[in-house]
């Protein structure tokens, strides 16, 4: 088996790389794929928290690199889904503890056993980024519809394009606020896509459920009723190759703004009378 190695990156911090990783990974595993997530954010690991696996970690990626354990030993199985594994980052070491070459070797070994290797990339464009990208052949660039995030995404895309190993990259717009986009208080998905001229793989609406799901250590894709969960499941389907249309949150929002307008008009008339 030769799996796909996908790095999830963003440039800017806090846009939702790790959340995206946890959710896409879980969704792919739910779809029956064998998935391993590799956290390369050495010193600032969080993927274990989002998956609720923080208490199960015995060995980390640094232990593997420094040969204190076998790669297989360091893989932590998910609580619910046996298809899903995590290779955790070391919390006590910095980015220099693992080299590009070592990460590439790990990815190469993992893709023999898994359908998908999802690499969680640290923020920034320094060595941590270079390491994370080293073993990947595909990338998902996470951004939000904010100027700073889009600018950083542009930078990352530039760096990815310069890497021969990266065959394709797709854009994921996170924390989307359809109502603000509809009222033109925020950039729309079309604006972002046009500015970055990148192919879109999905839009995840802003969802307070993300916070509560993190509190519980359970990715939001497990919540059938969540809008963000639904959007993440769709992203996973698109990764597998299914043709799922992107939910037009904006249209929905526009309709609701129309409703709002209608009601306020109604109220206003009442006032005049």
């Amino acid at each position, binding site marked *: 088996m030769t799996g796909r190695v996908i790095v999830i990156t963003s440039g800017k911090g806090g846009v939702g790389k790790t959340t995206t990783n946890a959710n896409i990974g879980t969704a792919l595993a739910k779809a029956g794929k064998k998935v391993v997530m590799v956290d390369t954010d050495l010193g600032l690991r969080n993927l274990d928290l989002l998956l609720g696996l923080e208490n199960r970690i015995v060995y980390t990626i640094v232990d593997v690199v420094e040969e204190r354990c076998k790669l297989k030993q360091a893989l932590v199985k998910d609580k619910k889904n046996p298809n899903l594994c995590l290779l955790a980052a070391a919390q006590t070491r910095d980015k220099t503890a693992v080299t590009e070459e070592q990460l590439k070797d790990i990815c190469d070994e993992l893709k023999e056993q898994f359908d998908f290797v999802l690499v969680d990339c640290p923020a920034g464009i320094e060595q941590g980024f270079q390491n994370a990208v080293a073993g990947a052949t595909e990338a998902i660039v996470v951004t939000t519809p904010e*100027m700073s995030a889009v*600018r950083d995404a*542009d930078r990352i895309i*530039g760096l990815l394009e310069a890497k021969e190993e990266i065959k394709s990259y797709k854009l994921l717009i996170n924390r989307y606020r359809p109502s603000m986009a509809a*009222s*033109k208080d*925020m*950039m729309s998905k079309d604006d972002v896509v046009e500015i970055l*001229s990148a192919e879109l793989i999905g839009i995840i609406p802003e969802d307070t459920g993300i916070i509560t799901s993190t509190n519980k250590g359970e990715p939001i894709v497990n919540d059938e009723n969540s809008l963000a969960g639904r959007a993440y499941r769709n992203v996973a389907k698109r990764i597998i190759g299914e043709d799922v249309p992107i939910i037009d949150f904006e249209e929905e929002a526009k309709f609701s703004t129309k409703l709002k307008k209608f009601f306020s008009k109604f109220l206003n008339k009442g006032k005049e009378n």
Partner: protein
Amino acid sequence: MSENIFAEIYNKILGLFGQNTKDESKNTAVNRLRLVLMQDRTNLTPEIMNRMRTELIAVLSKYVELDKEALDLNIGQEGEQMALMLSIPVIRAKDEAEIEEALKKETEKANEESEDAEAEEKEENNENSESEATDEETEEKQISEDSEISEQGEESNDSEEENKEVDTSEDEPTSEPAESAIDEKQIPKIKKVQKNDSEEE
């Protein structure tokens, strides 16, 4: 106090109905972002762009009379391709004699390097004053009033055209100015043929 409250309510109601009334901050974001990304991607800093603009004006001015203020140079994107977009509002095309004159001047400039810088500065000052604010023009008018009278006394001037002639007379003290002034009168001015891309959006 109460007035403020009413104003606030009024604004809110306006905001609910007409989206035209409020300024759409996302457009600002998109435009700012576009600009900054172009700079990021190309390393073309505003300074370099400005320099490019000035040099372009100098070249183009040899062949056409253009609205320097409205000349717009932008980096843009057309699909995958990066493009430099130049919008040149032409006031009028120069005739052959003028072009020849400009070219001759240029070769002269090339011959005498020390004069080169001076002449260019002069040229720029003049052309600027044509389209720039009026207070500058009046200043120049006063300075060159004498020469104007002596050289083009026979011409009957519209008061409107006066300023322009003053400019040109200072610029090219030979036989040029009178001719160009006449041309300007005859040919209707086409100002701001093209608008800025950013303005449209």
